[in-house]
């Protein structure tokens, strides 16, 4: 009978995690290039007390260390904004950014800016790992689909290519964790990505003057929210029944 309590509490906890995930997705409905998260229920429930040892797989090491949230890297819709430094990746891949302390982050881009040194940075200030430096007096900055960054330098008639942004392609993007502010980091033990030119070898192209919309689907999140409430209720009813039964068995001898 005590098993029923423990199992139901894991069920309740799973629904609570689902609520957190839904809330995070709904809050980022309009965040550029946001990738929706979904709960991996089997990962949550695998942490529960196993009911019969002979049916539990012997090597569940990955289950214990796996993340609860799964990221969905489905392409978001690309909308034109007209701002030259708004960049979207159309297709698979990420752009590497500097995170400090030697860490590399990966981003699906969004609204880029130039920092004081003329380097391209994300909206959150993280510097792109592209060898591009834009002089302060350059105009008409443009980013082509193949990643080449060009600008019209002072005194020139035609734009000069200043450098190239490369795209990092992962065999398995689910090995990334979301760090916040549109930046993902590699999990320990994950394979390094291949750095390729945008548009080649399966990598997405860069689309300047546009932003990739969030891939959150409002209807799916609303349905998940409603379902979560009712499943939570079901689990709490099971706890109540277990409580009643335990009360009865405790009171078999009243005196």
């Amino acid at each position, binding site marked *: *009978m005590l*098993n*029923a*309590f423990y*199992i*139901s509490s*894991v*069920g309740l906890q*799973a*629904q609570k995690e689902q609520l957190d995930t839904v809330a995070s997705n709904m809050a980022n409905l309009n965040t550029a290039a946001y990738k929706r998260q*979904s709960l*991996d*229920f*089997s990962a949550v*429930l*695998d942490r*529960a007390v*196993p*009911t019969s040892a002979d*049916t*539990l*797989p*012997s*090597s*569940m*090491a*990955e*289950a214990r260390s*796996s993340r609860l949230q*799964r990221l*969905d890297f*489905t392409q978001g819709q690309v909308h034109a904004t007209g701002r030259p430094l708004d960049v979207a990746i159309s297709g*698979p891949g990420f752009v590497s950014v500097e995170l400090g302390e030697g860490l590399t982050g990966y981003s699906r881009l969004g609204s880029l800016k130039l920092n004081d040194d003329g380097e391209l940075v994300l909206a959150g200030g993280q510097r792109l790992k592209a060898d591009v430096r834009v002089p302060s007096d350059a105009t008409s900055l443009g980013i082509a689909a193949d990643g080449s960054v060009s600008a019209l330098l002072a005194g020139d008639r035609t734009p000069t290519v200043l450098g190239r942004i490369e795209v990092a*392609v*992962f*065999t*398995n*993007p*689910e*090995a990334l964790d979301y760090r916040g502010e549109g930046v993902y980091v590699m999990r320990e*033990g*994950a*394979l390094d990505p291949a750095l390729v030119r945008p548009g080649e070898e*399966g990598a997405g192209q860069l689309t300047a003057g546009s932003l990739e919309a969030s891939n959150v689907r409002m209807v799916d999140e609303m349905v998940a929210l409603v*379902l*979560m409430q009712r*499943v939570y209720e*079901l*689990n709490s*009813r*099971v706890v109540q*029944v*277990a409580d*009643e*039964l335990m009360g*009865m*068995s405790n*009171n*078999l*001898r009243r005196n």
Partner: protein
Amino acid sequence: MSDIFQIAGLGMLQGNQQLEAISLNAAQASQPGYRRQVAVPLSFDKLLGAVPGGHDAASTLVERLVDTKRGAALNTGRPLDLSIEANDLYFALTDGVDTWLTRSGSFRLDANGVLVGQGGLRVVGAQGDVRLPSHDVRVQADGRIEHQGTVVGALQLFRLAPGATLRAGSGALLVATGGLQPAEPNVMRLQAGVLEASNTDPTKEMLGAVKLSRRFEGLSQLVQSYDAALARTIQKLGDL
């Protein structure tokens, strides 16, 4: 004289195990591919006959059967989320030693590019492990996996061997006691981007809980009445 305690005790312990199955179903109501368990009490004559004079509290007093009703289709759009059209076929997951069946086709690639499912267990393909060069693949209806036009692997579905039964395992995993066999190629039909939802039915779980709760209550009343009768008997003996 202790037979009444034994009988009532068996009934109450069966109720506990049934409650455990209900709680598992409720906890996994949102888990894609989960097949609900039904704990059917074993017949009393079998249980009483097997344990003369007492019983081992840890023994299994119920049979955990699996409800094979098909769950609803969940459209996720992920290329490695798969569902099976036929209701008597399953995916197989292995850790190299044991193999489990599952309806949960929510797969991903591990660090080595091998296709894995729940708990990191490897998916059994037509030729053993399925190793993919990228997550950007398309799974065809017959189980072949294509990457940029070339076939890079193939999945295999399984059915129960004749005479085998299905038992519940951990999470959405099922155990085939009696063996399993690969399905014939002409019945393999998969749908990519779709998952099968849990087939937990809250109504069935609540009805089961209500029934077992009243049965438990009745049996506990029986124990209390019998206990009171014994107390009076002993008191009477003391008066003599």
